[in-house]
């Protein structure tokens, strides 16, 4: 490896403080390449189990693709400094993350990326599981350049009546989707089901909203999660290629 190669793939990653919803200071994990080329940014929305090692690895992976990537800790307020699993349990017991607060925290993370010295001004978002729904939500509420929804439930379809959390379907907000949407789904998933994915695609087509959906056979919910039995290497490997191409296209200089 030459010195120039080493310079090009070196990255820096670590915890930063950013301004989230309501002006609150929250914790976030920022990973970015060290070279000074202009670059786009990606906000990573963690799954319900929290701001964990696997999500930080996803954040570093996006930096290795050449983006500045940041993952806000959505449980910063309920459980500052707690281990990710304890923080997720605390947030769950408190009723989960309200949608408006989520939008404010992701907006703060996007602003942080746009303020980095070599930002090209473009910011995308990617979310997994509950974060997939939240990625769609923020893309409907905030001006963004790209959004990736990885198997987010309840974008389409009502949650069961017993749901104590205010999780509402988002299809009626699709008209304000501000950017192209990449959707990654498993054919064996029921939340969202293939029929719900089809319904979302139909509505986006009707509204003239650019979108690209991929549904992988032999994969269910959580097929990107390398630390869980739902991991499907073939779907995840191909899925990451689609994600990388999409962000290259939408967030390139």
């Amino acid at each position, binding site marked *: 490896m030459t010195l120039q190669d080493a310079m090009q793939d070196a990255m820096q990653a670590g915890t930063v403080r950013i301004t989230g919803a309501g002006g609150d200071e929250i914790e976030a994990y920022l990973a970015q390449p060290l070279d000074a080329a202009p670059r786009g940014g990606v906000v990573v929305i963690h*799954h*319900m*189990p929290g701001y964990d090692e696997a999500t930080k690895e996803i954040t570093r992976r996006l930096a290795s693709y050449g983006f500045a990537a940041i993952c806000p800790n959505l449980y910063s307020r*309920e*459980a500052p400094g*707690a*281990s990710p*699993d*304890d*923080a997720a*349990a*605390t947030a*769950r*017991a*408190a009723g*989960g993350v309200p949608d408006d607060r989520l939008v404010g925290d992701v907006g703060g993370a996007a602003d942080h990326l746009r303020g980095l010295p070599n930002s090209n001004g473009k910011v995308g978002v990617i979310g997994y*599981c*509950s974060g997939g729904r939240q990625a769609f939500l923020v893309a409907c509420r905030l001006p963004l350049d790209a959004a990736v929804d990885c198997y987010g*439930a309840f974008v389409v379809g009502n*949650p*069961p009546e*017993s*749901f*104590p*959390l205010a*999780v509402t379907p988002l299809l009626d907000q699709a008209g304000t989707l501000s950017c192209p949407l990449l959707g990654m789904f498993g054919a064996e*998933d*029921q*939340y969202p089901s293939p029929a719900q994915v089809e319904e979302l695609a139909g509505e986006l087509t009707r509204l003239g909203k650019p979108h690209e959906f991929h549904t992988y056979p032999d994969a*269910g*919910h*959580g097929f990107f999660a390398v630390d*869980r*039995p*739902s991991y499907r290497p073939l779907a995840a490997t191909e899925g990451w290629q689609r994600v990388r191409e999409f962000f290259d296209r939408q967030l390139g200089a």
Partner: protein
Amino acid sequence: MCTYVTVKREVEGSGKGAGGWFPVSQTTVYVDHPTHAPYAHTLNIDFLNPAAGPAARVAVELTEESALALIEAIQGALAAAPAGMASRDQKV
């Protein structure tokens, strides 16, 4: 999926967590992805003391069969003891 469904109960008793024993004041019960158990979904129970912070937590992740067996075991153990023996109003 992330079911989000969480059944909460106020409880009285104690639990032993990473930092030692603490008073338990609340349990949350839910079916969702486990953190550690090698399954896609499990029945999860958190024994918590919200006032003592997020680390005051005893967590278990059980298969459906195990959770049902545990219910039976709890009922069996309580039935084998005189009524009220473990009640909050017991005489000590």
